[in-house]
């Protein structure tokens, strides 16, 4: 059996010529990405003087670790932020996935009389929102979840976009016949969900899980708006705060002539620090990524589920 599969796979392989062409194209596209990233890395290691004199360049006049040093001065704070962010990214994603996959299953049922209504209820919220102020009032005044870990977990529990994607995955990867066969056998929806649907659309779950986790990891806004407790400050919020002070001064260069401005200018973190921030935010994702990748790696090697 394995031999046959191997033979068939060989037949489905790309010709060497085309493969080479693709390899080259993909390589150039990778260069397009790698070169700017390399620049970021180099700037994070350039000195402030070099940046002022020569701008951002691949060959700075002076190298330094100051950017990182300033960043790590926040020491404990940085470690706390990492921990908090990792915790709520993982927990939040798990919670979200649980709730969203169940709902996606429900609205994927074509025979369910309310599936259209539910889809509408979900989708409507994607379009219309009361805006920041009502949500703020809800979270702070009525639910009191600001300044606690729940602010990261609850308001972002369900994302309409991802739920619809999940529904699409369910509908396309799980054929109707499977559903009906199971139901004829008398299985309840929940059993079907757990034992048949979930294992089959692992790819979909992994994809949405990845997207979900990344958006939580990247979120600096929630932390900025709601968190006072330094132990709960997420990573991106911490770094964005550091970066924003620089922005403010840049935009107000004219006011830099005032005593306040000058004092600030000299005591402030610099360009290289801003780039260092970016680097330390990306690194953990790059480490975690292969974990997700193996779920859709089948898409990368053309061996896949047998129907």
């Amino acid at each position, binding site marked *: 059996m394995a031999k046959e599969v191997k033979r068939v796979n060989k037949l489905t392989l790309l010709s060497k010529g085309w493969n080479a062409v693709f390899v080259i194209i993909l390589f150039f596209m990778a260069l397009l990405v790698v070169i700017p990233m390399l620049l970021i890395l180099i700037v994070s290691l350039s000195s*402030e*003087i070099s*940046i*002022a*004199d020569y701008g951002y360049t691949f060959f700075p006049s002076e190298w330094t670790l100051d950017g990182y040093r300033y960043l790590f001065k926040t020491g404990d704070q940085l470690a706390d932020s990492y921990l908090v962010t990792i915790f709520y990214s993982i927990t939040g994603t798990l919670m979200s996935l649980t709730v969203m996959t169940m709902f996606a299953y429900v609205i994927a049922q074509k025979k369910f*009389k*309310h599936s259209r*209504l539910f889809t509408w209820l979900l989708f409507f919220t994607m379009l219309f929102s009361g805006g*920041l*102020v*009502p949500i*703020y*009032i809800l979270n*702070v*005044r*009525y639910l009191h979840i600001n300044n606690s870990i729940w602010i990261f977990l609850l308001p972002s529990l369900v994302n309409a976009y991802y739920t619809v994607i999940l529904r699409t995955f369910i509908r396309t990867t799980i054929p109707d016949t499977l559903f009906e066969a199971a139901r004829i056998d008398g299985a309840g929806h929940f059993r079907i969900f757990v034992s048949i649907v979930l294992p089959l659309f692992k790819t979909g779950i992994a994809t949405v899980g990845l997207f979900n986790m990344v958006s939580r990891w990247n979120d600096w806004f929630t932390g*900025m*708006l709601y968190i*006072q407790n330094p132990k709960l400050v997420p990573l991106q919020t911490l770094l964005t*705060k550091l970066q*924003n*002070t620089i*922005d*403010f001064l*840049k935009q107000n*260069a*004219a*006011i*830099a*002539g*005032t*005593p*306040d401005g*000058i*004092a*600030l*200018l*000299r*005591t*402030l973190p610099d*360009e290289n620090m801003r780039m260092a921030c970016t680097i330390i935010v990306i690194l953990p994702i790059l480490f975690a990524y292969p974990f997700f990748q193996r779920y859709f790696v089948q898409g990368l090697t053309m061996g896949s589920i047998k129907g």
Partner: protein
Amino acid sequence: MKKLWITRTFAYLIVMVMIFSLTACSGSTKPSASQGDNSGGNEPTMKELNFVTLDWYLGLDPMPDNQMVNDAVNKYLKEKINANVNMYYWSAKDWETKMTTMISAGQDVGIIGFGSQSKLDYVVHSNRGSFRPLDDLLNNYGTETKALFPNEIWECMKINKQIYGIPSLKDNCYIMSFIYNADMADALGLDMGSVKFTNWRQIEPFLTEVLKKRSEKFPEYDQYPLCGGAGREIPYNFALETFLNDSYLAVCNIAPFFDVKGYDDDTVFNLYATNEYREFVKSRQRMVEKNIFAYDYTGKSEWNYKGGMFAWPGWGYTYMQKNLYGDAFTTKMIVSDHIWTETNNYFSAGTAISFNCAEPERAMMILNLVNTDPEFATMMRFGVQGKHYITNNEGKMQFEGSERNGGARADYGYYYWYAAPVGNLTIVKAPESLVGPNGIMLTEIKRYNKEAVMPNHMGFVFDIKPVANEIAACTNVVMEYRDILRNGQLESEKEVDKAVDEFVAKLEANGVKKVLAETQKQINDWKASK
């Protein structure tokens, strides 16, 4: 039918919930912060005061020792008025989103700083009811603070006949100065004593001359511009009375300066449509071409410290430290001969109390203290004695030798100089390196405040509501053109002419005439009612 009733129920539920949320969210009621009860009608005597905690939001960047100083402040306040404060230091970007959301959501924000640095517009927020009226509180608990300003200034602070904020006593006028590199001036043989400085337009010929000399004597400095940026129209280049924030669509001449010919000091006009503005922008383009000003000065602050530049704009300096930009050279300054003030200046920094503050009396007491007690004011700027600064053998303050602020400024634990949002600057005790021998800077501030020229419409506040749309549209146009024009980034004077024509035409198309007419009308009404 089963189908129908389930759908109907859902619909009803949703409608019910929305109605319920409407009534439940009865807007701005209970404040969230402080404990302790409100003392009701009677003014409590010092003995009766119960312990309360308030929030104080400062538009200052956070520094490492914020908590330490907060504790010290709390100790001080507990002794004096049995209260504590939670001080929140937020940087400008955070402030913009967070503070406006919190205020719009009706949160109790305790004591807040307002103004340009704090990014809370005094007029907009007073009109919107974000602040509490302070008239009674000032009379009962803030008499010393009230005495800091003459009555006419308090009249200026009135919006809809009530005072909503306490301006910070600092340089409450536009003290513009020409800061220069004294070492280079000597090396180039310049007689700085004979140089007159009015504004950055007037000094162009002098700068051109200096540039030539610098090029001859120090060609290695050619890569550096001659001066740091001074692009803002007002107050660096024009002395005019403004009625809007951040754009000069409606301005008025100030007697005796009359920076713009053809208008008296009672007529409102659009600065961008004047000939003087056109000439100003052309001169910027010329100067940038010659490298008197840098084409793009942002992010190049390191150049200031190298010693290759000659001059910088100063705003608010009444005393020039010997080494403003590090040890490479000495700095001196020439103060402009045009010193003026206006209503907007008093709105540019101050403190207010949240409209639903749980402890307004205590808040006013705290504000009174920070504006009148030198110990408190100094603590807010410089932190704790011993840790952040020491008193040397001559009895003067200094940073060197202190535990937290001894090294390079970049490593300071707590340092807010000026800290305009905090309050009265003139009572702060500061080292001589900042305020000069015998605190001359602070006494000079008071003198300038007294002598500053007052415009004709001191106390008039423009209500933007009737023309809010036109202002929004015109502000957008201003943002489109002003940076490139005032930073001199166009290729030639012909381009400048073209751009200015476009700019003015677009403003007209977006209703700037309506804005001017409305401003003029309101001014005339205001004058008539005086």
